[in-house]
Each structure stands twice: as C-alpha cells, then as structure tokens.
C-alpha cells in the first residue's frame, strides 16, 4: 500500500511540474492557435541558463534563478514572437508554418545548448536535491516539494493574472474572438506577444524547478514535449485549467504505470494514452466537441 501512496505522490509531484509547462503551452495554443513545438526547449534552456550558469559562476541557488528567469524569459518570449511568429497571424497556411518554424526553433535551441554546454548530462547538486523527509515509510524529496510549492504559486499566479486583471481578461477575449478585440480597443498584436511572453516565462522558470531534482541534457526536451502535448490535449487543447488537470493525470499515469510496466516503458504508457485519446475523444476530457475537426 505504501508503494502505491509513494507512486501517487510521485505522480502528483511530477504532474505539477509538467503542469507549469503545460499551462503555458495551452495558453499559446489557445490564444494564438500556434502549436509551439519548441515549448519544452525553453524549459531546458532555463535549466542551463540561468540555473546552471548562475550556480556555477555566482553560486546563486536555482530556486532564486527560477524567479530571475521570469523577466528574462518574458522578454525573450516577447521578442521571439515579434520576430518570428507575429507575421503568421491570420495567414492562410498559419498552422503548418507555425509547426515548422517552432520545430526549427526547437532544433536551434537544443543544439545551441549542446554547443554551449556539451551533451553530458548535468546535475544540480544542492543539499535539497537528495534530502528527503519521511512520513512512515514514505519518502518525500525536499527539492521536489519546494518545486511543488513554487509551481503552484506560478500556476495560481497565472490564473489570477488571466481572471482578475483586465489585461488577463483581454488575453482570454483574444482567445475567444481575435477579430472582435479591435472593437474593444484591444491591440491584438500586443496581446498575443504578451501571452506568448507570459507562457515562455512560466516555461523557463518551470524548467528550472524540474532541474533541481533530476539530471538534464540538451535533448531532454524531445521526450517531454509529447508529454506536454498529451497533457494539453487531454485537457481540451485550449483550456488552461484543463491542461493543469491533464498534466496531473499524465504524471499519475507515468508513475503508476510502473506497477504494470517495466520502468523503462513508463513514457510508453503516456504516449499510448495520448494515442488513445486522439482516437476516442480528441476534444479531451474538458474540451468542447467539434472544436477539433
């Protein structure tokens, strides 16, 4: 029984860390209808810069870097949107073009990381990385717990931003009806850039949180991008709260699959679930039917 509880806790912990990234992805897909294949790469980039770099050079704790990453990646996201993605808005071939551009971007980022830091897996070695609390026979890792708390702070922050501020509501409006925004005086271009920037900021910071308790390498993104898409699709593609719950479910599936599958096939379970969702219910658990065709 304890093993089950341990797995459930592990599943929730990893699920929340995916959720930080998945909610950002759902924001981008929902507002701009852009399928950001490079999403995971921003998380990985964050692990190297600022987390690893700042730790190596100035001894700055990664949890602090996570907060520093927010403004850095916000600006980066805004600039990238202006430079690359903005012109796709409203164009006829936007979906395919955005797939390809973001694929190219993911290549670029992953390999620049490879050049900059080599392919050897890195580890953050702080005291909390391996320390655990024990409740009975259940072990809970320090770093994962801190990450959990901070992740929830980020997610709640996003939620508050979108639902309690006027700018956030403007972003939601842009997701609902991009052309209708002009009538309200909403500058669509700016709002899109803002949404992208917020999403990338969350992703960069979220990646750093992940890095505090697991090793990372330049091509780590390849394996988690599909997990992120699975979470987002499960949650209904454009729903942010859906992506949150989708990520939790995916995290649980990943960890609990260890009971039926060998450990190296953990992700296979997740990807199989993704395929099944696409076959049976592509609008996800929380989405509206008819949005996908």
């Amino acid at each position, binding site marked *: 029984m304890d093993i089950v509880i341990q797995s459930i806790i592990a599943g929730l912990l990893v699920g929340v860390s995916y959720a930080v990234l998945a909610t950002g992805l759902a924001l981008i897909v929902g507002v701009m209808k852009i399928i950001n294949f490079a999403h995971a790469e921003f998380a990985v980039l964050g692990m190297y810069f600022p987390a690893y770099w700042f730790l190596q050079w100035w001894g700055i704790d990664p949890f602090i870097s996570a907060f520093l990453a927010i403004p850095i990646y916000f600006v980066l996201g805004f600039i990238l949107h202006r430079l690359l993605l903005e012109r796709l808005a409203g164009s006829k071939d936007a979906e395919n073009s955005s797939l390809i551009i973001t694929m190219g971007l993911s290549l670029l980022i992953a390999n620049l990381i490879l050049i900059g830091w080599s392919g050897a897996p890195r580890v953050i070695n702080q005291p909390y990385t391996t320390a655990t609390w024990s409740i009975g026979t259940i072990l809970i890792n320090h770093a994962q717990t801190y990450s959990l708390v901070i992740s929830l702070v980020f997610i709640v922050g996003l939620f508050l931003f979108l639902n309690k501020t*006027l700018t956030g*509501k*403007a972003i*939601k*409006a842009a*997701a*609902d*009806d991009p*052309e*209708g*925004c*002009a*009538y*309200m*005086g*909403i*500058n*669509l271009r700016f709002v899109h850039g803002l949404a992208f920037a917020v999403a990338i900021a969350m992703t960069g910071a979220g990646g750093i949180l992940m890095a505090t308790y697991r090793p990372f390498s330049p091509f780590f993104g390849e394996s988690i991008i599909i997990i992120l898409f699975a979470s987002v699709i499960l949650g209904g593609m454009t729903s942010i709260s859906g992506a949150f719950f989708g990520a939790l479910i995916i995290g649980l599936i990943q960890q609990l699959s260890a009971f039926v599958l060998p450990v190296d096939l953990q992700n296979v379970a997740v990807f199989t679930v993704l395929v099944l969702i696409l076959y049976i219910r592509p609008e996800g658990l929380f989405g509206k039917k008819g949005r996908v065709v």
Partner: protein
Amino acid sequence: MLEVKEVTVEYNGMKALDKISITLNENEFVSVIGPNGAGKSTLLKAISGTAKCVSGEIRFTNNEIGHMKAHSRTRLGIIHIPEGRRVFPSLTLVENLEIGAYRPEARNSMPKNLETVMGLFPKLAERRNQPAGTLSGGEQQMLAIGRGLMAMPSFLMLDEPSLGLSPVMADFIFQTIKEIRERLKFAILLVEQRAVEALEFCDRAYVLESGKVTLSGNRESLYKNPMVQKAYLGSMGI
C-alpha cells in the same frame, strides 16, 4: 463631428463602398438603411477601422483618422458595436462588460458604469457570472450594447442590433436605444435592416444601395418616401 469623404472600400474584388460621403454632427442620431449587401456594415467598419479604405478620407472632430489602427480609434471615443452580437462566449457577462471598458479613458469609471448598465438592463444583473455564450440572443444583444456603453463613447455605432431577435426583443432594444439617447448625450450612427424602427428615432438618415448613397434627408422626408420601400425589397411589386 464625423466626416466621411469619398471613401472606397474593396472586398473580394468588388467595391463594397464606392466613393461614399456622409456626415454626422455632435449629438446627432443618424440611421443608415438599405438592402442587404448595400455596404452598411462596411461603412461602419471603415469608420471604426476594422475594414481598410482604398481611397478617401475620414475625419473625426476635424482630425484625419484614416491611417489609425482600429484599436487606436477607440481611444478617440469611436465605439462600434458590431453586427451579430459578438460577445466573448467564454468570458462571464460581467467580464464582457469589464472588457468593454478596456480603453484607458473608460477604465477609471468602470465600477460606476457597471452599475449604470445593470440598471438599464436588469435582466443582465441576474446573470452576471454566467458565461456569455450561454445567454439567449436577446440577452447577448443587451450585453453587447451595455459593453459598448462601458467604453463611454462620444460616438456610438450600432450594426443591426435587432438582427435575429424576436419582434418583442427587437422592440425592447430600440426602446433602450431611445432611452440611452435621451440620458447620455452622444452621437449615434445606426445601421438597421428594419426601416421603420431605424427611422423612428433618428434625426437624419441615409439610404445605401450597392455601396452608394442614393437618398438622404431628415426623418420626416424619408419616412414618407416611396423609394425607401424599394430600398428594402427592390420593388418587390407591392
């Protein structure tokens, strides 16, 4: 206040508006009527900036605004309530109203204006936290108008507010527009399919056909004009 001079708008290769000119004075209520496809909606879009003019000039309080982007024109107080209601379906009723006050000039008065709008449309107050997509057609239209008011317009444009509404609902909407007009003084440009209602409250009116103004004049003269009938049914032979 508003001067549209020889404006041409092209759409899919056709001239939706063909060198059109209209004017509107402060606090005036002007209606635009005409058959479907005449370009009435396009005229409003040209003024609000949501459709591009190929040629011509638009002047608002003597300033040329033709080059301005749509979202910037709202800052001048030009508010366009588009046809088909167009509320944001996943935002709640209240959130829709709040978005209406997005333009910086209207933000400070948002709480007070919310009260006013709820007072005008008591039905909306009942459903304040419902997603706007679940409201009925009539409620959505009330919301759209209320949302336009939240922006504190100096010049309000309404595009076919009675579209798709039951006659009772349509009447209510027109009554409300009349009330609003009496309470808050601002200029109104109304586009409507239903000629009689459109002509009932206005000071002046234009008849648009195939992108051109074919008739204009004050309320009295248009009301009695047999050409107005033609404008609607293309002389169906009544």
